[in-house]
């Protein structure tokens, strides 16, 4: 099929970007979206132009690196997937496709479609861990029985891949879904209880410092999240936060 692409090109963080039009022919329906971009880049290179830079690594939906706004939606038109799992069979011959980077103040553009998401790392550095020594000899794993339902809930929160689609989807560029998933994973486990109050306070503080917006319960994040992270986590984080500040 033949596609009309409009792609955001930007040299680096300090130059202004712009949309550039490309026409691409010979796209097959079982190509992935990123393979389609590979082909575009091959063409650009053969013409002596600079290829379009985009972030990607595992190409199987788990590393959370790929991050494209496709026709205004993070990760494109399908639900519950990342861009690398999107296939061209979701498009038609002659379609126009608009491709942009994540848009959020806390995610500055590095080049073309690549943004800087290190704010997420800093939120986790603020407390997204259990303070247990790795060089010690912990107790036997089965000495900490955990109700299956709790373990599953914690697991579901832990499946967040840190892609940032939730932020990109949110009109306020809020990082609540991401942060709450991280907080919930630990809050639901007995191992994470001891420092729960401190954790949620520190992580929320860092989240605000990074310049993410507030949550106004629109729910766009949940809809666009490729891993189905639920809004329940935001509610849980709010409860945790409230009880922490009451205690504090």
């Amino acid at each position, binding site marked *: 099929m033949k596609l009309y692409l409009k792609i955001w090109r930007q040299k680096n963080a300090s130059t202004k970007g712009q949309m550039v039009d490309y026409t691409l022919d010979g796209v097959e329906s079982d190509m992935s979206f990123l393979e389609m971009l590979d082909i575009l880049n091959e063409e650009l290179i053969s013409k002596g132009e600079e290829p379009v830079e985009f972030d990607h690594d595992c190409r199987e939906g788990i590393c959370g690196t790929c991050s494209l706004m496709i026709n205004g939606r993070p990760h494109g038109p399908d639900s519950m997937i990342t861009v690398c799992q999107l296939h061209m069979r979701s498009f038609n011959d002659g379609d126009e496709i608009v491709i942009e980077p994540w848009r959020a103040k806390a995610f500055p553009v590095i080049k073309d479609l690549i943004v800087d998401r290190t704010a997420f790392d800093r939120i986790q550095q603020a407390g997204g861990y259990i303070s247990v*020594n790795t060089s010690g000899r912990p107790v036997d794993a089965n000495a900490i029985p955990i109700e299956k339902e709790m373990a599953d809930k914690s697991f579901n929160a832990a499946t967040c891949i840190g892609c940032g689609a939730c932020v990109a989807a949110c009109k306020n560029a809020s990082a609540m879904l991401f942060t709450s998933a991280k907080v919930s994973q630990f809050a639901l486990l007995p*191992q994470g209880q001891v420092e729960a109050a401190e954790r949620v306070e520190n992580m929320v503080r860092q989240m605000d410092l990074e310049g993410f917006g507030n949550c106004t319960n629109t729910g766009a994040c949940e809809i666009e999240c490729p891993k189905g992270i639920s809004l329940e986590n935001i509610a849980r984080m709010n409860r945790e936060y409230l009880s922490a500040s009451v205690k504090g």
Partner: protein
Amino acid sequence: MGVLDSREPKGPLANKWTNHKNEIDLVNPANKRNIDIIIVGTGLAGGSAAATLAELGYNVKTFCYQDSPRRAHSIAAQGGVNAAKNYQGDGDSVYRLFYDTVKGGDYRSRESNVYRLAEVSTNIIDQCVAQGVPFAREYGGLLDNRSFGGVLVSRTFYAKGQTGQQLLLGAYAAMNRQIQRGKIKSYTRHEMLDLVLVDGKARGIIARDLVSGKIERHSAHAVVLATGGYGNLFFLSTYCMGANVMAAWKAHKKGAFFANPCFTQIHPTCIPVSGDHQSKLTLMSESLRNDGRIWVPKRLEDAQAIREGKLKPTQLGEEERDYYLERRYPAFGNLVPRDVASRAAKERCDAGFGVNKTGEAVYLDFSAAIMRYGREKALTSGMKDVDDNTIRELGEKIVEAKYGNLFQMYEKIVDENPYKTPMMIYPAVHYTMGGLWVDYNLQTTIPGCYAAGEANFSDHGANRLGASALMQGLADGYFVLPYTIGDYLSDDIRTGPISTDSPEFDAAEKNVTDKLEKLMSGTGIHSVDYYHKKLGKIMWNKCGMSRNAKELKEAIKEIAELRKDFWENVKIPGRPDSKNQELEKAGRVADFLELGELFAKDALERNESCGGHFREEYQTPEGEALRDDENFKFVSAWEYKGEPSDAKLHKEDLVYENIKVKTRSYK
């Protein structure tokens, strides 16, 4: 140099590690503050090592090329991590895990290393649970286990199909704690381009900031390479796109021996190749083989009709299907090890029984499991007189709970519903057992340069059993390196900070910038991918699932020619002093073009079949691998001498004192 001293401790196998730890030199906690360690790679091996060494008090600097340590390739591991906990009471033990691993690796791994791995495996699970890794649990709240290829016990711990992700997030969290404390400095979007030696010791690295293009010098008292495997030299593989051999190869060029480069694991259950545009292959976790049955049609006509789309697999009855693994290997059936399962699939497809358009796919069928689980569920929920459709629905729910995300992944890629029609699978390059040669302390032949995880060669022999790469990465990082590196560093407590202002750093930096300039100066005609794909084709066709002397010799020649062409004709747009992904790729492919040749040379040298290395000239009448223990019971360790063709072979003889070396049989 030239003498390979494995530094295996003496004494009975079960006491070696304990004795060694007791004898190793320690570094006083106050002195650890004065010692810097560079860790390249933040996957399970690098991440766990960084967290633990920082916690012990060393100053750690970590490097990864991704934007966050959490995105290292370990994140993609699906199936699980082994540990000899014997929670299932099915007869597992440290010895049995050790035995399975040595046998599974076709007796080409080092006994003492593997025993240590089995010994510390139980700590890994304790550690990860303490960190909050949400492993699968049973209703009673205890940890659940499943079984993996090549073994008859359930010793694999898992978190749905996302075990690697959860384990890596655990190590990453431990790293974050140390970053917050200021004990780890994390350099992301940075690539190591060279290793720096001062007085013959590893004392630092040259790295490129991938955003600004700036070349940086970093010094340390020791350097740990935990940079993963090199399977990407095949172009199509299950590795992430950025996986490379650069760091290990640069260390090799500076004196680190490269061991067993030809030992590559081909994983039997991957989604088959669909077309030329394809950039990577996707693995379907081996755990699926617990419930899926593998088959092809019995009759050639049926296979052909299926390929032409005239017949559906579901239309073939039981007696028209060839469950070839169950037929050939009754004891292990669908759970034979990966090398055996992969070759058996290739054998059937080569004989014309393949089931997709290209004839390179076999079925992985869940219908029997779905019905079995459905019936059980109906019985246990007290449902009577239920029809097949209801049973199927009940069964599908149970299969979904076990493997849901894998089924979803398959459906997205292939556009077919695997609950209704059997999956198609084919073997793909998945893991490299070869890597930098290391001694028992995980030190390479360069003093002060260590290798951990998939980047070293040590524990898996010629074939890796499922769920043991994660185990090895974490064992190295959490429990081995933190001890063994102290032995070396105890000599360094008075050294003080290492200056980056030295002729050695100058020379290494110049070497790097010259190389970048050379890459950029080409007025070339072909893209980097063009070369990478060509190399991949040579590797897959001539050094892939089966090899022979004639084709290996051809490959050696072709790779050398391709390398020459690359340096003359590669075309890299943009500039070196800014973000430039083509330049990043070019540097990686340049190294693959050298390693590929050494790989073929190693395969040619090894006149036997073992594990992932199948030489067509050496097979039994039934087509099984034919080892030659008399002549090849050794690790091949290659010393760099200029061109790959000049590399010099050193042999580390493998001694089995505690295990009787037998022919591997899974019948």
